[in-house]
């Protein structure tokens, strides 16, 4: 009983811990309850149409009506379409071949090609099955009168689905590279948040501050070992991906290592900021967790990014993990080069600058 009372008194003193105890379950509820949707809809789609006919228009219309597709762009060339998929701007490209309607009318069963970015099978599978069933029925309304004989099976057109990057739809291919970002976030944020608070809590900070070494140097000195730790973790995951999970590594690993520095730095910046805010190690861990939770849930790691409501996507866009996941998957699965990943580097860089400036601003040179 004495201990129960003591715990409550201590809990009341430690405001931040108390706030976290309320805040974390609340956040979990919001995130799991509202943000997560494993049936993503309105996926961005590009259309490359060489045949502007009633039929092709009704197919596009039907796709949009299914709720799974949202046509965001009409492109003119294969190359343009390929770039959109590589950069991850669209999830699908619908390719309507030349003379589609003529062949259709002649009963030649023309092919309708849907290219899907299948890096995340969970994001595309429902849309793809919707597409398959829709092509069977879509033209029923248009094929009337003299054309009604075309309505009989087999279907008047063939739908060909071409899944790129992860043709077999193996979930590990998507998860394992993503894991890299998750592991880095978790360990780096927690470790750096702890590193400084530990010095403070154990009283060794007092000693460090009394030496001629500049506080900024102390901080940098504390960070560098963990950057190295981060890289070791990365190498470990890449090796595991290659030899344990047989993930095809399409891209340039060196590029990945270089770009990762930005991500590692962004996470360290967060950890550092936490370590200047937290008064003890428990608080530091809680803050790290508070950051980790949305990172893992809203970044597109656990659940398809495009399945989340717009507000959750906006939060996700702020998080470095979101962009890093796109980069890692881009490089490893799609073989992206520097050009394709640049759009995802800016947000991380901005995040890094903001996190570091808060960290430095909050950083106390003295004990008061």
């Amino acid at each position, binding site marked *: 009983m004495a201990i129960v009372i003591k715990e409550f008194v201590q809990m009341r003193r430690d405001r931040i811990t108390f706030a976290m105890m309320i805040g974390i379950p609340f956040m979990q509820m919001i995130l799991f309850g509202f943000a997560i949707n494993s049936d993503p809809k309105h996926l961005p789609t590009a259309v490359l149409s060489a045949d502007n006919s009633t039929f092709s228009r009704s197919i596009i219309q039907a796709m949009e009506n299914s709720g799974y597709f949202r046509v965001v762009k009409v492109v003119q060339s294969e190359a343009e379409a390929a770039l959109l998929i590589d950069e991850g701007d669209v999830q699908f490209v619908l390719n309507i071949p030349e003379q589609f309607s003529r062949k259709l009318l002649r009963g030649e069963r023309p092919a309708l090609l849907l290219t899907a970015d299948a890096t995340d099978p969970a994001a595309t599978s429902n849309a793809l099955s919707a597409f398959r069933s829709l092509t069977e029925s879509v033209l029923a309304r248009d094929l009337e009168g003299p054309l009604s004989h075309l309505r009989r099976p087999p279907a008047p057109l063939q739908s060909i689905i071409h899944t790129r990057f992860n043709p077999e739809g193996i979930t590990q291919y998507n998860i394992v590279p993503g894991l890299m970002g998750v592991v880095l976030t978790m360990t780096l944020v927690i470790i750096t948040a702890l590193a400084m608070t530990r010095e403070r809590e*154990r*009283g060794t900070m*007092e*000693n460090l*501050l009394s030496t*001629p*070494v500049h506080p900024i140097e102390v901080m940098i000195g504390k960070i560098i070992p963990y950057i190295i730790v981060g890289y070791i973790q990365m190498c470990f995951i890449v090796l595991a991906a290659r030899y344990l999970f047989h993930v095809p590594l399409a891209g340039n690993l060196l590029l990945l290592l270089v770009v990762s520095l930005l991500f590692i730095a962004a996470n360290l910046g967060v950890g550092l900021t936490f370590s200047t805010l937290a008064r003890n190690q428990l608080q530091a861990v809680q803050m790290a967790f508070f950051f980790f939770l949305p990172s893992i849930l809203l970044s597109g790691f656990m659940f398809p990014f495009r399945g989340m409501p717009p507000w959750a996507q906006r939060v996700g866009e702020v998080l470095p993990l979101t962009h890093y996941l796109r980069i890692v998957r881009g490089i490893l699965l799609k073989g992206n080069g520097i050009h394709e990943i640049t759009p995802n580097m800016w947000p991380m860089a901005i995040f890094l600058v903001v996190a570091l400036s808060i960290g430095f601003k909050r950083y106390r040179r*003295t*004990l*008061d």
Partner: protein
Amino acid sequence: MSEGFSPAISVKDLTKSFGDKVVVKKLSLQVEQGEIFGFLGPNGSGKTTFIRMLCGLLRPDSGSGICLGYNIVSESAKIKPNIGYMSQKFSLYEDLSVRENLNFMGRMYGIPRQRLAVAEIMEHMGLSRFAEQLAGTLSGGWKQRLALASCLLHKPKLLLLDEPTAGVDPKARRDFWDDVYSMAALGITALISTHYMDEAERCHRLAYLSYGNLLAVGTADEVTASSGLATWSISGKKMHELSAQIKALPGVELVIPFGNTLHVCGHDELLLSQSLHAMKNSEYRLEKIATGLEEVFISLMQDQGDS
């Protein structure tokens, strides 16, 4: 810095408060070079706070100070390489060995030929046999010794030692003071906070701080003389019964038991002497003695409490 003449520490009207609690009030003080300066005062009187301000760990709210010729507020970066600060709480790494701790501190100060310096200091401080032991597993006294070694490593000009001998056995304390004396002989200044009266008496000069106020400064003799206290010692049997009786006598301000002896003090020497002689009895031995620091400090503390 003009060697030899300017004081090692000179502060003026230094003030520091936490929240609305003023912890150090307009403190002005000078410590000469090569001096061993004792810093005394009850718990929470602001000793640690004052020392932290000297080495740039805390910013004073107001007032100014010069330490080794540099401004303590704006030039603390120039002060730090020349001071050895030993904090009240053990602040080395418990999960590093003695040698690793010293190596680390050596690198932090960028001392030349650091391996050799570390070996020398370990030899000198008698730490060699613990070299590979984790600092956390040392006994309290040896931790203190390690802490002292780590702040001597870079050969500072000024030592700021915050209760360096708390919880240390008498032999180790004597060793410690021998070290401090030999350091002072080399011209190194030491500011040492302590709660021990015998240590206070070993200092060249001392200051007594109470609730942020500087109540007395000077040599031990100056401090006792300026207190104006007269002290009598009474010895005999059943002293504790007598104690209450004596306390009630006119002129008696303070009764401090020392085993079978009572030290009775008062500012009014005549009145005190009359009162004590009036109750004189063959069972007790009454004797006038020189006032010690302990009596002075307890009396100062009592006066503070009254006001």
